[in-house]
C-alpha cells in the first residue's frame, strides 16, 4: 500500500497538473480572502477567515478532481492497470494506496493555506485581538473531511471511465451536487417546513458548516465517514471486477 501511495504521489507531482491545481486553489481562495471587495478581509470590520472557509470547498473540488481523475482512468487508458492488478496486491491495497495519496495532497493543500492565511490575517488584528482559533480548527477539520469525501468519490469515478477529462467532470459534478445541490434543492417551496431540513441534511454543506462552528458532533463525523466508506467499498468492488468491466 505504501508503495502505491509513493508512486501516486510521485506521479501527481511529476506532472504540471499537480502543481497547477494546487496553485489554482491558492490563487482562487486568495482572491476571495484579499481582493474581491465583498469578501476581502481588508474590507471587513470583523476579522475572520470566513471568506476562505465559504469558498474553499468549491475550489477543493477542483484540486481533488484533478488529483483523482488520473488515478485509475489514466492507468486504464495506458494499460498499466493490468500491471498493477497482476502484482501480489489485493484490490483494497491498491484502492487504499491511491486514496492515501489523494488525501495527502488535500492535506498538503490545506496546510499551505493554514500556514499562510492564518498568520497573515492575524497580523492585521489590533493588539490584543485574536482570531477565533477554535472555529478555525473546526473549519479546517471540516474542510479535511470534505476533501477526504471528495477524494473517495473521485477515486470511484476514475475507475468507471478511461478518459481523465470525463473522470474530472464526473467527479466534479457529483461532488458539487453532494456539496451544494441538496441545499439548493431544499429551497423549493414544496419542501418548506419539514422536508427542507432533511434534504439539506443529505448534503455535505450542512455537516461542514456544523463542524465549522467548532461543534464536534458525532453525527456529522459519522456522515462523512459513511460516505467515504461507501465510495471506497464501491471502488474496491469495481477494481476486483475490472478485467470484466466495460469502461466508458
Amino acid at each position, binding site marked *: 500500500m*505504501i*508503495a*502505491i501511495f*509513493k*508512486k501516486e504521489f*510521485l*506521479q501527481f507531482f*511529476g*506532472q504540471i497538473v499537480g502543481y497547477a491545481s494546487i496553485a489554482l486553489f491558492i490563487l482562487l481562495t486568495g482572491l476571495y480572502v484579499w481582493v474581491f471587495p465583498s469578501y476581502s478581509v481588508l474590507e471587513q470590520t470583523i476579522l475572520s477567515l470566513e471568506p476562505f472557509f465559504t469558498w474553499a470547498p468549491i475550489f477543493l473540488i477542483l484540486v481533488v478532481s484533478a488529483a483523482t481523475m488520473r488515478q485509475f482512468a489514466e492507468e486504464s487508458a*495506458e*494499460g*498499466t492497470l*493490468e*500491471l498493477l*492488478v*497482476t*502484482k*501480489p*496486491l*489485493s484490490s483494497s491495497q491498491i484502492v487504499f494506496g491511491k486514496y492515501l495519496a489523494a488525501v495527502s495532497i488535500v492535506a498538503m493543500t490545506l496546510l499551505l493555506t493554514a500556514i499562510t492565511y492564518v498568520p497573515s490575517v492575524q497580523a492585521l488584528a489590533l493588539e490584543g485581538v485574536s482570531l477565533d482559533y477554535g472555529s478555525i480548527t473546526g473549519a479546517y477539520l471540516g474542510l479535511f473531511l470534505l476533501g477526504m469525501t471528495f477524494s473517495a468519490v473521485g477515486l470511484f469515478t476514475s475507475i468507471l471511465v478511461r478518459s481523465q477529462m470525463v473522470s474530472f467532470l464526473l467527479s466534479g459534478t457529483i461532488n458539487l451536487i453532494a456539496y451544494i445541490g441538496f441545499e439548493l434543492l431544499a429551497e423549493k417551496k414544496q419542501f418548506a417546513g419539514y422536508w427542507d431540513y432533511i434534504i439539506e441534511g443529505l448534503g455535505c454543506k450542512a455537516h461542514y458548516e456544523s463542524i465549522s462552528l467548532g461543534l464536534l458532533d458525532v453525527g456529522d463525523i459519522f456522515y462523512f465517514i459513511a460516505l467515504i466508506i461507501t465510495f471506497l467499498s464501491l471502488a474496491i468492488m469495481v477494481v476486483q471486477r475490472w*478485467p470484466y468491466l466495460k469502461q466508458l
Partner: protein
Amino acid sequence: MLVLDRVSKFYGNQRAVDSLSFSVNKGDIVGFLGPNGAGKSTTMRMIMGFLRPNRGSVKVNGLDVQANLKRTRQQIGYLPEGNPLYHDLYVREFLRFAASVTGVPNPRKRIEETIHLVGLQREAHKKIGQLSKGFKQRVGLAHALIHNPNLLILDEPHSGLDPNQLMEVRARLREIAIDKAIILSTHLMQEVQALCDRVVIINNGKLVVDKTLVELEREHGKNLEATFAHYTSSKTSVKL
C-alpha cells in the same frame, strides 16, 4: 513449474480458449504461437490470475493460481501485451515501486543488478517517457525480472522493435533464461527459432501443436512460417 489442465474461457457464447492443456518446466523457453485472436493473451492473463477460467485449472509450482493469487504472482514475471509503463516515472522509481510491491529483499542492490542484467545502465537516470522503444522494452523486462521470478510470461516482447533492438532483446532473454521457465508469445518466427526449445501453437482457442522445435523442423522443414500457416490456416484441417 506451470501446468494448464483443460483450461477454457468463454466470452458470452464465444470460446476464447477451449480445453487447453500444456505444461512448462524449468529451463524451457516455450514459443506460444497463434494467429491474432487465437487466445494467446487470454491464456497468459489466466496464468497471471487476471482472468478466471470458466473451466479447468492453472497451477504454478503446484499451487492453483485462482486460490493463491498473491503467492503465485510472486513467482511470475509478466510483460503484458503492448508493454504498458508509467511514462512519468524515472526508471529507478518505477523499479523501486515494482520491487516494493513484490517484496524484494534488499531492493537497492536488486534494482542495480536488474538494470545491469537488461543493459539499462546508461538510461537508468531518465524518465521512462524519454526512452526509445527498445529501451522501454528493457524497462518492461527489468520490471518483470525484478523479483527474480522462476516463471516469465512475455506477451509479444518483440512488438515494434527494429532489427538491432530485436537482437538486443534476444541476447537479454538468452542470458535470463538459464534458470527460469519462459513463455514467449510472438509473431516473429525467427525469434522463436533463435530462442525457443519448444513450440505451442493454438488456433481458435484450441491446442494444435505442442512439440520441440527439433521435432517440428524434422517433420515440416526449417520454414517455421510455413509450418505455422499449415497448422493455423483456416483452409487446412489439422489433426493432432
